[in-house]
């Protein structure tokens, strides 16, 4: 398995040729977004995007902390947490975009264009989830470590679209609010808002917010009684008793003894997974984000430019998935806006081979971005990929409410890979120390430690660069011949003799006087 220019170019062209015309219109009335949206039917949606994450999840899911039953309790806990959160989001009239591992992404867009109502829901959802975890979820799972919650919300226009695979369709949002809401989440247990959300809030909710030194606004903690009063004042309902009952019912419905996890000798089929069939594997998590895409789409103000940006978005989205799954036999976990998450777990338990495979896939992703995507879409010139990679024991599953099940990858290293990507710049591949240290020399030599990224980073590393660096010093030794073959596109120079290849012994170069 490897990356190849022509194969990549052909599939991008084929995708673009069959994509059809993209339609972007403003969403003016309520609709079932999952039915309405598609790759080519896109809507500009004014809404509040909310992210709520279990801030201590990385340590909860870290390797070695759990005996078999503990691990099952974690799976059971995440599954029930996601089901309960889904009910709360829907009860508030929101749309569950998806869970990214244990991180919720929800959207409020109803009532249409009513900024105040949307901002109110974004704030109260965060407060309710915090209360839910503290008063219902953690007591119900007293034999697990407590979950803690952090959140972020932003308000504005984002474009909603969908990926186009039948039976595995995912809602996708691109644009500033979908991005900023995730970016302002702090590692501490804080609920945060952008200025746009704060300014749309009524006075009673503004009164419980303050501006932090680093910019975003923060929501002060409120008691359960005060929360109930705020919900009532704004016409929203959340019944603690009903939520608690559902959690207990779900614990009975998904008992520990029915939860199973095992290893995977062949590539994991995500659609086969469920709460009852999980995989626990040595896996390398990879996150690839299109750096500069949010600005690109926000600067696209005309319909024509928006169509162009979405065409670019879908081309990148599809090609990155094909590199991961088709070229390098990885598993696509999830699209997260303009980011893709993947997992490499084969050959089973062979860390060195997995590390090499995932880094070669990252190089393949950079090659597609820099060579073929830009060759097919010159308008993508300023877009780059930032990639983060880490490896460790990872739980892979499909959890959550019926019809809303999300592919998830749980583990400390999956979280750390995401953090490495977030600290990287466009054009970079960032590795954890664990991955770096077991890479073969021909790949390892391209990476150097970056204090800023807190990992080992290679910049502008593409397939042809790896290829040239690997063969260069070997074939250009004294008197060694190289082989030159003329093809349809141009000349190929290599160290291998092949049919029609001519040998050339390069002469010594003479450095002219400065």
């Amino acid at each position, binding site marked *: 398995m490897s990356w190849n220019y022509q194969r990549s170019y052909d599939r991008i062209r084929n995708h673009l040729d069959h994509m059809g015309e993209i339609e972007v219109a403003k969403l003016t009335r309520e609709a079932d977004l999952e039915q309405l949206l598609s790759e080519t039917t896109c809507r500009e949606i004014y809404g509040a995007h909310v992210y709520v994450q279990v801030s201590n999840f990385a340590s909860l899911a870290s390797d070695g902390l759990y005996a078999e039953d503990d691990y099952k309790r974690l799976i059971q806990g995440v599954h029930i947490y996601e089901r309960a959160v889904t009910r709360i989001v829907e009860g508030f009239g929101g749309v569950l975009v998806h869970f990214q591992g244990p991180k919720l992404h929800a959207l409020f867009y109803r009532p249409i264009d009513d900024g105040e109502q949307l901002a109110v829901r974004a704030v109260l959802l965060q407060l309710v989830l915090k209360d839910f975890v503290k008063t219902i979820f953690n007591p119900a799972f007293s034999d697990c470590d407590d979950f803690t919650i952090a959140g972020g919300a932003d308000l504005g226009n984002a474009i909603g679209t969908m990926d186009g695979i039948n039976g595995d369709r995912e809602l996708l949002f691109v644009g500033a609010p979908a991005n900023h809401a995730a970016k302002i989440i702090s590692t501490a247990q804080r609920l945060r808002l952008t200025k746009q959300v704060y300014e749309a809030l009524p006075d009673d909710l503004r009164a419980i917010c303050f501006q932090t030194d680093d910019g975003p606004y923060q929501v002060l903690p409120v008691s359960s009684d005060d929360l109930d009063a705020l919900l009532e004042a704004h016409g929203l309902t959340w019944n603690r008793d009903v939520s608690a009952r559902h959690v207990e019912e779900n614990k009975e419905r998904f008992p520990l003894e029915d939860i199973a996890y095992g290893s995977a000798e062949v590539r994991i089929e995500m659609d086969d997974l469920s709460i009852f069939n999980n995989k626990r594997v040595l896996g390398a998590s990879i996150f690839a984000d299109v750096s500069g895409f949010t600005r690109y789409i926000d600067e696209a103000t005309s319909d024509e430019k928006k169509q162009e940006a979405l065409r670019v978005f879908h081309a990148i989205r599809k090609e990155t998935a094909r590199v991961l799954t088709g070229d390098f036999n990885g598993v696509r976990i999830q699209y997260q806006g303009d980011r893709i998450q993947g997992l490499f777990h084969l050959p089973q338990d062979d860390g060195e081979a997995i590390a090499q495979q995932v880094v070669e896939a990252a190089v393949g992703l950079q090659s597609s971005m820099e060579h073929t995507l830009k060759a097919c879409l010159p308008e993508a010139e300023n877009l780059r990929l930032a990639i983060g990679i880490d490896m460790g024991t990872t739980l892979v599953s499909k959890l959550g409410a019926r019809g809303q099940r999300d592919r998830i990858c749980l583990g400390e290293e999956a979280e750390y890979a995401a953090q490495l990507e977030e600290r990287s710049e466009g054009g970079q591949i960032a590795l954890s120390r664990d991955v770096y240290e077991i890479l073969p020399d021909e790949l390892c030599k391209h990476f150097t430690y970056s204090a800023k990224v807190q990992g080992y980073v290679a910049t502008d590393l593409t397939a042809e660069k790896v*290829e040239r660096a690997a063969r*260069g*010093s070997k074939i*250009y030794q004294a008197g060694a011949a190289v082989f030159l073959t*003329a093809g349809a*596109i141009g*000349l190929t120079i290599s160290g291998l003799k092949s049919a029609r290849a001519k040998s050339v012994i390069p002469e*010594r170069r003479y*450095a002219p*006087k400065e």
Partner: protein
Amino acid sequence: MHQRNSPWYQRGGGSRLAQDQASIAEMFPGLSYRVDETAGRVFLEGTITLVAECGVPTPIVVRVEFPSDYPQGEPHIFEIAERFPHMPDRHFFADGQCCLWLPPESRWKPDDPEGLCRFLEEAAVFFDQQLVYEAEGKGIWPGEQRSHGDEGYLEFVQEVLGGGQQLLAVFAPILLGLRTGHIQSNDQCPCGSRRKYKRCHKQHVEEVRRRMGSDFLQYIVGQWYTHTTETKKM
């Protein structure tokens, strides 16, 4: 007389140009000829595309210039889009001319009908080495190279003689035709091998003379010898 004064590409009924054009069209389709009738010059311009084994094409924009005595004189190739930094350590002259080899080591063969293609293949290997240099990121030239300026020529002379500076010091008077360097074929070779000169270093000395040209040899080796002997005296 008319033949001698006409531009090279018209001599012999333009047969050399026609021959070159045919082989270039087959091997380097990205290059095309431009004739400047006013200046009486021909340029070969366009791209040489290097394709990595993974299929990534890298086009290099070049211009080939031909001397008025072409094909006796060798062509020069310039990288004109500044894809690479034009600096001596990368074997470029400041104007983008590629320094493909030390002139005495030139691979140019005036009588080879495929000579221009061979020359461009050497240039393609040169550009590939540039890409390898960048890919490796070590700042080290991937392959053999000679030093800057006169040092490079001295290295060449020493290499043909088969030794270092000490051997060059022994043969410098012979190479320079000095009175102290007078030697007969049947004399013992001054290298210390105890073999006859004609069976030892004579052909090497003649090779150096032939490839360097006597004037240039006088300049390069003469300068070095004067400096060495003066340093010794001090």
